[in-house]
């Protein structure tokens, strides 16, 4: 079952094993750690559904091999951001704006925009759209997502 690998996920030290050190982080999070916030959309880095934070930066977990991660890097998933009872301001804003249809893309939208707001608290519309240009939504929830990100920015 391979050597144990230590990770810091949502503030907890965890140990995982895999036969293949090249396994993408997405599968480790979803299947070994039961974290279902990050979602499989393409496995190609094209859609953003799988986005997580690594040291505060939004990365595509579907193209991030386990072997590329160090134990001191802080991995945060949608679950680590907040819960329904204690939502992160971005999550709270998505609820307030009812910014989801199927919601499949929403993990990526929230993780990407939370990372944006962390480094740039007051982005204008164009900056938000640029930031989210690589996050696809098929349901057409874009306008609501945009409003939610602006609401979150205002609340931070």
């Amino acid at each position, binding site marked *: 079952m391979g050597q144990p690998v230590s990770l810091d996920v949502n503030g907890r030290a965890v140990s995982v094993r895999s036969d*293949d050190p090249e396994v993408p982080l997405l599968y480790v999070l979803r299947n070994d750690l039961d974290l279902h916030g990050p979602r499989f959309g393409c496995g190609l880095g094209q859609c953003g559904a799988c986005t997580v934070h690594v040291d505060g930066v939004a990365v595509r977990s579907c193209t991030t091999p386990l072997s590329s991660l160090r134990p001191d890097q802080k991995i945060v998933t949608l679950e680590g951001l907040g819960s329904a009872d204690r939502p992160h301001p971005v999550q709270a804003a998505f609820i307030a704006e009812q910014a989801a249809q199927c919601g*499949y893309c929403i993990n990526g939208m929230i993780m990407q925009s939370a990372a944006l707001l962390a480094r740039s608290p007051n982005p204008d519309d164009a900056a938000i759209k640029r930031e989210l240009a690589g996050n696809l939504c098929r*349901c057409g929830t874009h306008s609501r997502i945009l409003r939610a990100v602006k609401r979150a920015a205002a609340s931070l």
Partner: protein
Amino acid sequence: MSDPILSRRAILQGGGALVVSFSLLPRAAAAAPPLPPALPTRGLPKSVAGDEVDGFLAIGADGRVTVFSGKVDLGTGVKTALKQMAAEELDLPMGAVSIVQGDTGLTPDQGPTYGSLSIQNGGAQIRQAAATARAALLGLAADRLGVPAAGLALKDGAIGGIPFADLLKDKRFALKVDADAPLKDPSRYALVGKSVARIDIPGKVTGRFTYIHDLKVPGMVHGRVVRPPTIGARLEAVDDAAALAMPGVVKVVREGNFLAIVAQTEWGAIKAAEALRPRWSAWAGLPEQDKLWQHVRATRVAKDDVTSAVGDVAAALPQAAKMLVATYDFAIHTHGSIGPSCAVAEFKDGRLTCWSASQMTHALRRQLAAMTGLPTEDVRCIYLEGSGCYGRNGHEDAAADATLLARAVGRPVRVQWSRADEHGWDPKGPPTLIDLKGGLDAAGAIVAWTSEFFIPEGGAGNVPLVAAELAGLPHETALAPGNIVHNSALPYALPNVRTVCHRLAETPLRPSWIRTPGRMQNTFANEAFLDELAAAAGVDPADYRMRLLNDPRGAEVLTRALALAKWESRPSPRAETGGDVLRGRGVSYVRYELYRTYVAGVAEVEVDRATGAIRVPRFVVVQDCGQVINPDGVRNQLEGNVIQTVSRVLKEEVTFDRGAVTSLDWASYPILAFPEVPEVVMELIDRPTEKPWGAGEPAAAIVPSAISNAVFDATGVRLRSVPFTKAKMLEGLRGV
């Protein structure tokens, strides 16, 4: 928190079916036992009859009301809206109602979840069942209290202080749904018509919602399908030595041309599938893509459907002062769900349970029974939400894949499609070709209209399952593209009209319905060609439509859309055509299927003269879908529908070579991204005393034509071929 999921202990207690106990699974539903594989046998089984109150409603010992809905939430928010409708009739707060959807063991067969019918039909049935229950409960309370029912009211799950559950004891309603049971007066609505927050959103934005992709069943292993490189290839041999040597591989499964691998882990299955060395026969049965329209035109016509015949077109057309002729076409589209299809199947004691995001679990159950040879009673299909599907995508096919694999390995199997599986193998919206002729009199009025639609035959039946086809197991052979003749006829009063659909015996790729099937393509041609006639007549295109509209509700949506868009009346194209960026506006109108929802809209476009790029910065839309159950929910659908359709119109086209689909990812099948998304300006006309009509699909019908009309207004170039690519735009601009 999302709705309770029926736990293994969801037993029907005592002698009746009314008491259904639920347990809220902890969020790690992953680790919890899955839904029960078979229905309990103690007591009477839960009714699934579509004409019985007990089919739709149960009142638990704790007073909670559970709604059993055959219609499912495809990410549209309909679960919330159906709860609102049921709670309203029973004067309950939202929190007192739970909903179970799309479980063939528990919910009535209300037909597939498509066609914008969940509220209009599905909701109406549930509402009527709740109204019947309400009357029955009032009668029981009146008997108990010895007072007339007329003086009693429902309040917080009780009547005259007696809880519903006590009124019914452990009895079932044992009542047919009464079509005449009085419905609550809309003026007393507390929930319907209100923007109640969606019950699924908090879970979805915090990673606590259980999608089909998240389901784990004890003992579950992972399957991966290996599709042929061309649609008709035969599997000649497989070298599986390298794959079988990989860690965790359970089995290589081969049935005819169906090939898959099962492994302990999902990643293990992916890697092992890559290590398989299949040998496939050559096949090149698809037409050349750049000759697609010749191919469509040459395809054998199985039958003609005449969808309207008024007056005498043959006589009137030659008399016309002016005649226009045009051909429109609309490319093959894919559903493009962001999450590829996924399903889990398990065989236990000879019975099959299959979890999927199928929009039609009851029909899927029959298909899986046919494929496996099991009696239908031994198959249970259970719905869990997936990624938005917008029609019949690959969910049902993944369910069939999982079923074959679970049978082959004797363990529960989860199948997750890859992106290429989804883009390559989900069924497609078929290509549509339309010829039109219109005649004007000297004053510019339309004296004759004729159109011919070249579209595949078939309706909205079952789309054959890929696994069954590949494995040579029983499956349907008829095409099922959806009811695509709709809106081939016009929503206007004209003196001489003939519209006919030539139903083609075949179409290049397995067809199915994608949001607004047929209605979108047909309305594209109708409303753009009408604009051509308006331009030929030198009349403002909105005025032109208004003259032809003899329907007051239709006229109202159009009037309001024009006002909202600040439409200035003048003929198209606009006079000044200078500058690098040309701007224009286009109008369009539809009455969905000519009998329900009205939509009118105005597209605003910018055309970059140098690159041919078209932008839609703003889209104005007004919809009248009768009674609105949840205004914010409808706005969410309406806005999404417009944005999705702008994407389809500007960008989307499935590409293929002689053997298979070649647009297998988001680079080769791009969709609209954030920087290109239009602002959607909306107005809903709520008519609380009318019936609710479909809300999720109709607006898409007007989008392609509104954009074509706006591009014509901006440039004088008429785009008649979706998608409106830069190349087509540049070609048109060069010709002006």
